[in-house]
């Protein structure tokens, strides 16, 4: 009996070990199946008005989407349904969980029969694929369909060669969110300068609440909200983007200065946040046990409904008045792989996805999002979102977010450095040195 079981377990063990090996390539191999809906080949019977004579006709188009949460997914389904009532060929929606989508994206883009459009984020994370030659040049639909989009959005969607490779459809703003009623109770008003901000924190603390909430336990990236903003307020957006592009060093005196401001707020951060994810860290804010949460406007979606009307935001305070106030406006949208079977159809689809009707559906379902189309009807947009739009319009310049302005690989280095800094602010110099070393590995790879 012993012999039999031993062998069986050995066999399982060997299979398990091989399974570890197999994991990577298996998952990578799955990617090519992802566009199963569109793999049925060409159908000469279907013609489309916009497709040029030379372009191959396709029987269906595929939209690969990472919008897997219920509300955005429903909005996406509605957009696809709208396309299918108005246009040909049939559009098939393929929704994948965000994690798998992220890991598989390079495979989607480089597969022989890629999806015809994919949801993605604007910024370096999109441009990097353009420099690998994986994205379709959308400059002509920018000329025709998106001429009214703001120049900042056009810049954001332009690659190193000056081509537009991205269709931005919506964005959100990152700010200091607070409860109006609690601020009133504590007798504080939204601060504008750093000194005022410190005073507000001190007052809130004296009232027995934690001035700042921050969930860095299972979502270490939340700490990057503060790093991004403090670095932009101290050194400016241009320096910040240079740093994230690898042209500056994390052990520079400039970054060291940023960290000294970070150090000033440490005593005001709810220490329990180290065990929380970003959603859990919203609870102390909702309960009135914490004062301020620097995070994206999407945070309001996890708050109890009766708290939402009490929520407002203020701009991250100015540290150096000489530094223009940049704001973070992470932008989402679509791009198209360069290898699509019918570029004309794919461009038609991209123009539709960025168009007014599709955006209107999207912002109706995602109320903390701001649409990019200049002609959108914003009458149903919540009051705070309108102020968010204004807030971004008044910004000196717009950035995305740490990972979007660099890469997910660099984000990993930031997560380790910043969460360690929260624990050991005294070791800031060695933390920055190690951060630089880790960042160099990322830029080398």
């Amino acid at each position: 009996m012993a012999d039999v079981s031993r062998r069986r377990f050995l066999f399982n063990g060997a299979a398990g070990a091989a399974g570890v090996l197999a994991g990577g390539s298996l998952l990578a191999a799955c990617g090519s199946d992802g566009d199963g809906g569109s793999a049925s080949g060409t159908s000469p019977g279907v013609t489309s008005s916009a497709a040029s004579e030379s372009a191959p006709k396709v029987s269906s188009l595929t939209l690969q989407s990472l919008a897997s949460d219920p509300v955005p997914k429903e909005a996406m389904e509605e957009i696809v349904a709208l396309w299918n009532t108005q246009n040909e060929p049939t559009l098939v929606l393929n929704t994948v969980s965000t994690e798998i989508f992220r890991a598989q994206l390079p495979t989607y883009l480089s597969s022989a029969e890629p999806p015809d459009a994919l949801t993605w984020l604007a910024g370096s994370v999109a441009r990097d694929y353009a420099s690998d030659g994986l994205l379709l040049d959308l400059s002509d639909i920018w000329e025709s369909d998106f001429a009214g989009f703001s120049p900042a959005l056009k810049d954001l969607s332009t690659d190193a060669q000056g081509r537009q490779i991205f269709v931005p459809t919506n964005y959100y703003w990152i700010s200091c969110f607070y409860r109006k009623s609690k601020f009133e109770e504590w007798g504080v008003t939204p601060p504008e300068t750093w000194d005022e901000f410190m005073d507000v924190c001190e007052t809130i603390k004296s009232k027995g609440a934690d001035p700042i909430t921050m969930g860095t336990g299972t979502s270490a990236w939340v700490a990057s909200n503060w790093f991004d903003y403090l670095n932009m307020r101290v050194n400016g957006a241009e320096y910040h983007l240079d740093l994230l592009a690898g042209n500056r060093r994390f052990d520079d005196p400039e970054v060291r200065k940023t960290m000294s401001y970070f150090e000033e707020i440490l005593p005001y951060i709810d220490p329990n946040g180290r065990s929380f994810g970003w959603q859990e860290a919203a609870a102390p804010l909702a309960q009135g046990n914490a004062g301020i949460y620097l995070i994206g406007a999407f945070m309001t979606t996890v708050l109890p409904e009766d708290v939402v009307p009490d929520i407002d935001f203020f701009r991250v305070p100015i540290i150096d008045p000489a530094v223009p106030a940049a704001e973070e406006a992470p932008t989402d949208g679509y791009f198209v792989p360069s290898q699509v079977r019918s570029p004309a159809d794919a461009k038609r689809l991209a123009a539709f996805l960025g168009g007014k009707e599709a955006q209107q559906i999207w912002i109706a379902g995602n109320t903390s999002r701001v649409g990019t189309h200049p002609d959108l009807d914003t009458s149903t947009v919540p009051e705070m979102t309108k102020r968010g739009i204004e807030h971004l319009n008044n910004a000196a310049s717009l950035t995305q977010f740490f990972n979007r302005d660099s890469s997910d690989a660099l984000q990993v280095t930031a997560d380790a450095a910043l969460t360690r800094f929260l624990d050991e602010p005294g070791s800031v110099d060695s933390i920055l040195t190690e951060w630089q070393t880790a960042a160099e590995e990322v830029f080398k790879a």
Partner: protein
Amino acid sequence: MTAAPETQPLASVVPSDRREWLPSREYAIVLVLIAVPLLYETFWVFWPAINTAYISLTDWGGGSSKSFVGLDNYRRMPDDPVLREALGNTAVWVLGYGVLIVLVGLALAVVLQSQRRGIGLYRAAIYLPMVFSLVVTGLFWRVLYYPTGPVNAVLGAAGLEGLQRQWLADPSTALYAVMIAAIWRGVGYVMVLYLAGLKATDPQLNEAAQLDGCTGWRAFRYVVFPQLKPVHTVVLAVAMIDSLRTFDIIFTMTQGGPYNRSELLSSYTVQRMFTALDYGYGSALAVVMFLLTLGFIGLYLHRAEPKDVQS
């Protein structure tokens, strides 16, 4: 007429005569029975494994351009501080998890082996966590370890406020906190293996020892324990392999944090591959993990084999 030929083959069913007796049709069936799993394994296990070994020699971000870089990914390893951390943690994990789960599982089996009323309830309760997925286990324990959660509450009620901490956010406790959750989930399985082993011990031998005055700890150590030898090898192999491939519970509870202090080789491999999209280096880590597992299996075979031949 029919009876004679039918009785005769009975004798030749003895394995040594089988070769002459088996008709060719059965050979074909045997061949198919071997070939189907072999093909399956080749396609789903061996080919991806070899492919991973190849990817580990390339610089690949998951896209179309895959450049051959030889052993570069392996040369990066000695200078990788996170890998050092992950290797150290993996060693602690394999030893800590492996030893504790065997000791606790054995102890539980010994305590719960007797046939008393209601004891089945205890056994079931201890085995129950095994039916939860590791992800569910992770979420459940995350709540227990909350700064204001039950673990700290119990410590506070017992007057041990000094021991209260953020178990999963504290770099000195995170790995061990996850380990306790993993043992809680897996120990029932080890217990069941040992319960079966204890049932299979020779009652006459145990009784004889008892008559000779050998009871209690000595009876267990010198009479029962040696009889469990075949179970030990199985349990140890299971525990070692389980601990080397641990990933999901780390991922749900700490994601390797805070700042890589609970990173294991497995979670770091996933992080490199699927978060940083560094498939080349990630695959190299997977190959290292494979070799380590293989090493464990080899070591285990080497130790287990001669003893088994004796018995």
